């Protein structure tokens, strides 16, 4: 497996708070990497820095071995990198189809398309197909997402990201608002996406979910990536120990990077 997306020594301060402190990260194609850490450890900052949502003070990001700088989310998504934000970033008054294709509308052929007319039917069909394929909880492709339940909204956000992510998919707390069956669906979906050769980065507070689906777990503490360990054979206690600093890297024989 070759590294697809890599961060080297990223630093970012907000005032006196060092949100990222020489933090490293890497993920390969066809791999699920989980980033865990206590609140304020820098997980979300790391995701933002890797997806064009935040500028860093120093450090570099490599995509397919080339140095890149994503200054807008659009830069990242044009490379096939998609994010499901914790706040979902949906337009509540638009329906699932409109949200899914926002910024990527399918236009009609010919002059009509050049005048700005969209192919609504094609977009609705594609959206419906995507929701069915993902076993999504979405029951309507024309109801405003703001009128839907939290789980359905999450489904829309995930389906949108999955549909466009051709290289890397970031999921920030994807199971936070979901019930048991929907959570299982999301975890199954993560595995399917990985099997398609896409790199999946999962940020989650739920240790069992992390251990169930991740290939590797990277632990952040105080803005640093303190340890990487394979999910297999790792216990929840070890993860929690690494997160809180109770367990240092030398205590775990498997540690790969510091």
């Amino acid at each position, binding site marked *: 497996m070759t590294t697809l997306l890599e961060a080297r020594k990223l630093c970012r301060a907000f005032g006196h708070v060092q949100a990222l402190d020489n933090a490293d990260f890497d993920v390969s194609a066809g791999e699920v990497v989980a980033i865990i850490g206590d609140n304020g450890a820098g997980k979300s900052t790391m995701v933002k820095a890797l997806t064009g949502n935040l500028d860093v003070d120093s450090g570099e990001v490599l995509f397919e071995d080339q140095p890149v700088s994503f200054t807008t989310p659009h830069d990242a998504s044009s490379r096939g990198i998609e994010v499901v934000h914790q706040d979902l970033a949906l337009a509540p008054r638009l329906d699932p189809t409109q949200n899914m294709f926002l910024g990527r509308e399918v236009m009609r052929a010919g002059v009509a398309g050049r005048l700005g007319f969209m192919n609504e039917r094609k977009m609705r069909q594609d959206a419906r197909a995507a929701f069915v394929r993902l076993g999504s909880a979405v029951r309507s492709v024309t109801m405003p997402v703001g009128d839907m339940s939290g789980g359905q909204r999450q489904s829309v956000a995930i389906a949108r990201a999955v549909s466009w992510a051709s290289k890397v998919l970031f999921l920030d707390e994807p199971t936070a608002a979901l*019930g048991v069956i929907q959570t299982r669906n999301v975890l199954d979906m993560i595995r399917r996406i990985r099997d398609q050769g896409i790199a999946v980065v999962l940020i989650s507070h739920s240790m069992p979910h992390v251990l169930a689906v991740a290939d590797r777990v990277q632990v952040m503490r105080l803005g640093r990536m303190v340890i990487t360990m394979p999910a297999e054979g790792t216990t929840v206690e070890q993860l929690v120990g690494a997160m809180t600093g109770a367990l240092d890297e030398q205590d775990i024989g498997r540690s790969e990077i510091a």
Partner: protein
Amino acid sequence: MSQSTMQTDVTVEIGQETLAGRLRSMQSIWILGVLIVIVAIFGVLEPTRFLAYNNLMNIAQNASIWAVIAVGMTYVIITSGIDLSVGSVLVFSSVISAKVMEMMGDKGWPTVAVGTLLALVSGGLWGVLNGWLVAKAKVPALIVTLGTLSIALGAAQIITSGLDIRSAPVVLQDSVGYGRVAGVPVISLIALFVVILGGIGLHMTRFGRYTFAIGSNELAARRVGIGVDRKLIEIYALCGLLAGFAGQLSLAQYGTTTIAGQSLTNLNVIAAVVIGGTSIFGGQGSMLGSMVGLFIPAVLLSGFVITGVSPFWQTVAVGAILIAAVFVDQQRRAAAARGGRAAVKARRAAAPASPGVAEYK
């Protein structure tokens, strides 16, 4: 339930989208019902006079200028913005147009064409200024357009020393102002054309989709790569352009600039747009709704005059309808939101507490 049956269910349920269902959920349909009821009441009370073809055409004529402004206002309010400057921009544009047409001398259509172009350009420029200040300088739209309301009106008064210019070309007044085609006022046909174009643009094109997206969640729109600032400038420019065009139509209809007569135009148009179901919080609205919202005051005024009720009651009624329309809309939305939250709560309660969280606490 097995995975496959679940997916079949999904297919079936997603398939059940009906046009009727979508229409029922639109505020503009309910408010259209209110308009029909009002028309029916006056129609029963005064069938011969109120429902007379001429009276209906008069109502249309009186609503035409505001209809053109309401098209732009609908776009602006859907972005969760507001444009208070439309009345002043109308005055400013009509002054510029009238001044130049007066200087050219009345040479018929060429004069009118130049005047129209100038009205459009001057209106559009005010709109660009509004849009730039809102999108780039990040000044709240209410403040920006309150400022330009004052500036545009003041500028118009400086140019004219506060005296109306009463020399609109005869051909403009005769053909557009008083002219009728098959009994329909020309000015109403022009307004209808603008409204239809505006409605198509809002509901069927990508430009319209982005207008809704910006009003619904500006950050989400930015994240998917929509040039929000540019779109906002374009939308305010469109609103200004249409206010400028309304200035030219006003010259046609009244034969004079109406410097002192537009102080409530902005509020009347905003009220119409909001009555029509366009949310002042953005993200929601329709061109049909704005037109219905515009015709309710116009129909009430005509109806009160014909039935002998003091027309002052129209102002009272419109105010009450405005508040009632928004109240009903809020109630419906709150009910929908409650439903959504209840569903989430039920699911959270059904899901066991996450063991991972419990363990590292």
